[in-house]
């Protein structure tokens, strides 16, 4: 009987932990199913009202760019014609060395990251933090 109770408690605890772990890595906004025009429009909406999305986890696809002078990685969203672009900085979850650990420049990438708002910087009020990159 005691062994049975211990077994049930172990199973319940494991399930709860797994559920919590899943919730912590759950994506709040998965935009990978959208085409590039809608992705661009959605990110413009995010930058227009960043406070509403602060701390939310995004999964988005875009084009990779790196500024060697500033040492910052960016993901670029553009509309269907490519004439309008939005570049957002992202900080990888683990320290990475450019260019070995990063994708090729201007390649298609998907990042899963949290949105971080920086109101003191009006030029770039929001960026992605703890980013996991897929390419």
């Amino acid at each position, binding site marked *: 009987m005691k062994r049975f109770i211990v077994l049930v408690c172990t199973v319940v605890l494991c399930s709860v932990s797994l559920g919590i772990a899943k919730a912590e890595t759950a994506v709040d906004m998965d935009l990978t199913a959208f085409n590039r025009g809608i992705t661009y429009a959605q990110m413009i*909406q995010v930058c227009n009202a960043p406070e509403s999305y602060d701390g939310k986890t995004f999964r988005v696809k875009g084009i990779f760019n790196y500024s060697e002078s500033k040492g910052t990685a960016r993901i670029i969203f553009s509309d269907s014609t490519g004439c309008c672009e939005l570049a957002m900085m992202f900080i990888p979850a683990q320290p990475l060395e450019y260019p070995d650990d990063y994708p090729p420049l201007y390649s298609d990438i998907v990042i899963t990251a949290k949105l971080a708002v920086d109101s003191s910087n009006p030029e770039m009020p929001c960026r992605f933090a703890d980013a996991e990159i897929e390419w």
Partner: protein
Amino acid sequence: MFRTIEMYLKVPFVQYALIVGVLIALCSSLLGVTLVLKRFSFIGDGLSHVAFGAMAVAGVLQPLLKDVVKELAKGPTILNEGIHGAITGVVTFLSANSMPFVLLATTLSAILLLRGGKRTRIKGDAAIAMISVGALALGYMLLSLFSASTNLSGDVCSTLFGSTSILTLTQAEVWLCVSLSAVVAVIFFLFYNKIFAVTFDEDFARASGTGVDAYNLLIAVVIAVIIVLAMNLVGSLLISALIIFPAMSAMRVFRSFRGVTVCSAVFSVTCALLGILVSIVFSTPVGSTIVAVDIVGFLIFSVIGRIRGGIAK
């Protein structure tokens, strides 16, 4: 395909784009009939270029206004708190929104071009051309000299062709568009008979006691509002399509003013809805897609008109 549309229809800004797009298409089609019949089809083009120039000026003034806001935020000096607060509010609003300035400039130009009515028609083409190209050139020059944007050509392209403008409206802009569209629609329905009279026979309308000058002024103001709103949907260069195609398509099939107006409204709303959905699903520029759908619709209506004309004979 339907699952894709269903997915996109759940996104809030797509819903706003559809609502605003339909309202703008409706308003522009209603006044489009009047403009086409008064031989002022290209006024939309001219006024949209003025709006572009006004946006450029607003863009240059906004950083200055933001500096003024910072100074005002330090507190009242000469004025009392209430007036200071009101001025701060107005300047803050103008520093973040260019639409009021653009509306004012476009309305003044519309009044200049249209208020004379029949008397203006003699100088109409030349006046439209001068104001149109002048505003476009000055606007582009101001942007290239003073713009702080990192992607100037992209901003200009988006303003001229309306690739994603309708999808990137802020909440305030959506409410402004909806309110102005509602006002335009109400004005048109309330003054339908007078607008009809002024459109078809100004002299008779004047002789029968209708205030023709006042109604020409009203039409001018309403057109200016529609042009500024329509820039968000199809961009400056393609606005004429929203005004001309619905009216011309309806005229292929219907003969009465009422019939043409109703058909024009239904045509415009349907094409705008279809155009926005197609552009969202296939990731094409919104403005050009709507115009492409308008062209197809016009061809269909032309064929229907010929068949009906052939049957009538």
